[in-house]
């Protein structure tokens, strides 16, 4: 890299981070000014400064709640990934199975999870488990549909080449289908990671667990009942940050796995 091009890359990175950051700061400043000037009460709209203060002062219960939500999100995300990938493998091995099951996968997807959640909570005694099941159901479909599409998106000539060399089904799956499916699968992971978080929060709203083992959704509900709006905002902030972190991790994973060979991760010269 010449000094010129590295300088260029640096200024690009600055733009990529600096511009949105600047916009955010302007927005926060305007919000703060608006609250102060209009003299709005904190139970209606808390100022950003108050929100951060609350985050610090209420850190103990908020952190415990965050940990519960993150745990449920990650467990559901993992469960959805494992189950989704297994279903996709079944789908590409047997066209009949896919034809039989795919409509039901769609049915599951289009049914709002909020409407099934009470049922699951009744059927499954353990609250954590029932919440994990709800969130997994929300996150499952993008993994199934993306991975199935990916496993089928094999270059036809390359597939012919494997057949010419008498490759077994297993060899075709491991050496051809799985690597070909990787970009699609990772795209599915990105969508599902966000959905798992949404599912975890929604499930907790419905389950309405209190006391020990309650997550951020309970904190939001509770703060609402008690008109502790700054605390509600602080909880919201934590949920958003969790979502951003998940997305960033998935983006990093994608770059790590596809960097060098897949079009989506290669910059034009």
């Amino acid at each position: 890299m010449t000094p010129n091009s590295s300088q260029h890359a640096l200024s690009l990175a600055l733009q990529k981070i600096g511009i949105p950051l600047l916009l955010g700061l302007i927005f926060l400043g305007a919000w703060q000014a608006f609250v102060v000037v209009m003299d709005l009460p904190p139970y209606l709209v808390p100022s950003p400064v108050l929100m951060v203060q609350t985050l610090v002062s209420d850190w103990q219960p908020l952190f415990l709640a965050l940990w519960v939500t993150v745990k449920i999100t990650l467990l559901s995300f993992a469960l959805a990934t494992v189950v989704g990938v297994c279903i996709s493998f079944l789908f590409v091995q047997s066209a009949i199975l896919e034809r039989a099951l795919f409509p039901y996968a769609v049915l599951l997807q289009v049914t709002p999870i909020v409407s099934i959640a009470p049922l699951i909570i009744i059927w499954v005694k353990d609250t954590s488990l029932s919440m994990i099941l709800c969130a997994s159901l929300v996150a499952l479909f993008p993994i199934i549909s993306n991975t199935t599409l990916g496993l089928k998106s094999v270059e036809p000539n390359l597939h012919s080449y494997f057949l010419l060399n008498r490759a077994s089904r297993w060899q075709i799956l491991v050496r051809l289908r799985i690597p070909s499916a990787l970009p699609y699968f990772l795209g599915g992971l990105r969508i599902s990671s966000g959905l798992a978080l949404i599912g975890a929060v929604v499930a907790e709203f419905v389950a309405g667990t209190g006391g020990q083992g309650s997550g951020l959704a309970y904190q939001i509900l509770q703060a609402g009942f008690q008109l502790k709006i700054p605390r509600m905002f602080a909880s919201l902030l934590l949920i958003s940050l969790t979502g951003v972190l998940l997305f960033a991790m998935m983006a990093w994973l994608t770059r790590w796995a596809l960097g060098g060979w897949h079009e989506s991760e290669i910059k034009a010269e």
Partner: protein
Amino acid sequence: MSSLSFSTPAVEVLSANKTYANGYQALLPVNLSIQEGEFVTLLGPSGCGKSTLLKMVAGLLEPSDGRILLWRKPVADLQASGKTMSFVFQSPTLMPWADVATNVRLPLDLMGTPKSEAKERVMEALELVGLEKFANALPRALSGGMQMRVSIARGLVTEPDLLLMDEPFGALDEITRHRLDADLLSLWAKKKLTVIFVTHSIHEAVFLSNRVVMMAARPGHIIQEHIIDEPYPRTQEFMVRTEFMRHAQVLQKSLEHASESIN
């Protein structure tokens, strides 16, 4: 060609034809016999069924009727007769996620060749095509010509008795193509391969082959076979000789004649 006429036929196409399920006639019944060690080119315009014929020989397509024998056995029993075949596609058809060495090693991996032996043979094949320095490169880091060389190295790594090539250099520039044509001829001489080569370039056909099988379209059929009885090794110099021009003209005329009789 008398020296070849007594040897074993490597490929026998016995009134094989192809009609697709939608009724499209890709190829009328075709008869063709190719001797061991021959370099035969299938030449014709697009739609003449030359790729269809090649894919039937490879076993990628089933003939609708008729038979195809390799070393006097059905295509599916090739392995039992101890012979091997390689297919080189029009595009490099490499795995974009795997480096050059892994791509070339693929047929050996699929056969279950021991790692150390496979590694050695991969390096040999890469040396044959002059790419030993690029063993660890990903395909997309290479030019189109180099990717095609990788594809040929993958075709040669199994030391095939029969090499089938479906317009392998069609997408390359003229200069690269001439060089790869010359390389292919020296490999063929060195390895005593039987080659069936599909092309729509008359010059390429004359330069490479012992025998050119000319084909015409709608529906695909063989119009004529033409023997290029010129000695090997052939170099670039061969392409400006009068004999070369004479052969090219014969092919040109009969291809034109065939397309006139259709239109």
